[in-house]
């Protein structure tokens, strides 16, 4: 009998031993004798024993959460430490890996009591700034642009927040690869950094970030909700009040339906309030094209100076 191939990753500060390739995640060479999370292939029953809540494709008994996705497979998340996957006959293992890394990890991390935002993040003088919004809002593009300007990538698409000492909440970064549309890759001249297609269904590529940083406890200074800029206007920022901020943090949960399904509203609210003690939320109106990139950089860097973040002299000019 041959040993199964295993991959070791570091995801949101946790060491993960996986029997399936997790596309775009950062591989970890620090050993995996005691991984925090195990991902393995195993038969998964289509129903849970003593389920207490159910939805169209999920059920839970508190300790365990089962997802049964037609034409993909069954996935069982147990006590924040283990993901079992049982692919359907014709499902693509690449799609399974993407699903495990996105939705299954969200369930698992929520089982651990963490808050997961649909956001990308970069580091500004050792502080995290987050860019959130629904799919297609431009989170990855914003992170890629700022990477070209010299700001290291912390997180792509998913930001996990965990408690620190003193009631603060910090970001656990993992610098997984950016996911960018082929047009964006060409526009930003990142062809050399483009790797494989994210999925056969989309013309999106995994793109190696120009700069990245891994930090277990990065303090969070600002969260920007991305909004489209009307034609003819300049990029601008709007400071949201505490109520608007709390609403946006809830709205930008990575998988809002999983917050509902797992009934973790209270955790989300508590962490959001904790986060708002030391981080502010802004609406950032930005253009979808790259015509006003210099104006966008000027706006952000002026804002970061006002927040007390010293901007490095080594930043590069976008051209």
């Amino acid at each position, binding site marked *: 009998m041959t040993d199964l191939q295993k991959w070791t990753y570091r995801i949101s500060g946790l060491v993960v031993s996986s029997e399936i390739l997790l596309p775009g995640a950062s591989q970890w060479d620090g050993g995996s004798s005691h991984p925090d999370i195990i991902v393995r292939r195993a038969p998964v029953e289509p129903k849970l024993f003593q389920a207490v809540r159910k939805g169209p494709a999920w059920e839970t008994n508190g300790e365990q959460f089962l997802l049964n996705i037609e034409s993909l497979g069954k996935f069982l998340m147990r006590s924040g430490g283990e993901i079992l996957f049982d692919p359907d006959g014709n499902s693509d293992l690449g799609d399974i890996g993407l699903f495990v890394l996105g939705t299954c990890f969200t369930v698992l991390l929520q089982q651990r009591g963490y808050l997961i935002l649909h956001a990308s993040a970069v580091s500004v003088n050792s502080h995290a700034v987050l860019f959130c919004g629904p799919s297609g809002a431009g989170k990855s593009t914003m992170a890629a642009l700022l990477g070209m300007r010299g700001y290291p990538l912390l997180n792509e698409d998913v930001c996990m927040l965990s408690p620190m000492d003193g009631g603060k909440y910090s970001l656990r970064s993992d610098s997984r690869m950016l996911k960018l549309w082929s047009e964006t890759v060409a526009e930003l001249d990142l062809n050399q950094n483009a790797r494989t297609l994210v999925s056969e269904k989309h013309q999106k590529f995994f793109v190696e970030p120009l700069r990245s940083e891994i930090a277990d406890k990065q303090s969070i200074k600002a969260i920007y909700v991305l909004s489209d800029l009307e034609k003819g206007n300049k990029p601008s920022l709007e400071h949201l*009040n*505490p*109520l608007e901020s709390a*609403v946006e943090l809830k709205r930008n949960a990575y998988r809002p339906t999983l917050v509902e399904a797992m009934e973790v509203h*209270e955790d989300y*609210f*508590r962490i959001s*309030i904790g986060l708002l003690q030391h981080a502010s939320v802004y609406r950032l109106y930005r253009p979808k094209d790259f015509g006003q990139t210099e104006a966008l950089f000027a706006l952000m860097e002026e804002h970061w100076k006002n927040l007390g973040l010293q901007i490095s002299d080594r930043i590069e000019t976008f051209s």
Partner: protein
Amino acid sequence: MKPLRLHEDIVITREDGWLAGRVGDDLVMMHAKSNQFANLSATGSRIWELLEVPRTLKDLCEALSCEYDITAEEAMADVTKFLRTAESHNLFHFEQ
């Protein structure tokens, strides 16, 4: 819906299910089941705190008039205004 008839002996009770957290002077609130949010300013949040146990309107106004050094009539006017606004957010229920 009938307009709320407020009088001194009406008993005011917090509705269940609201989560609350302070951000600066504001009290941000969320109702987990209805997904409704609310925000109370400094005075509103003090009223919320005082209503940790049900109280009559008269009791509530007396407590506030002592704390804020205002007359009972002034407190009654402020609290009544606040409660009429809060009613539409389902923060409290009232027993005549």
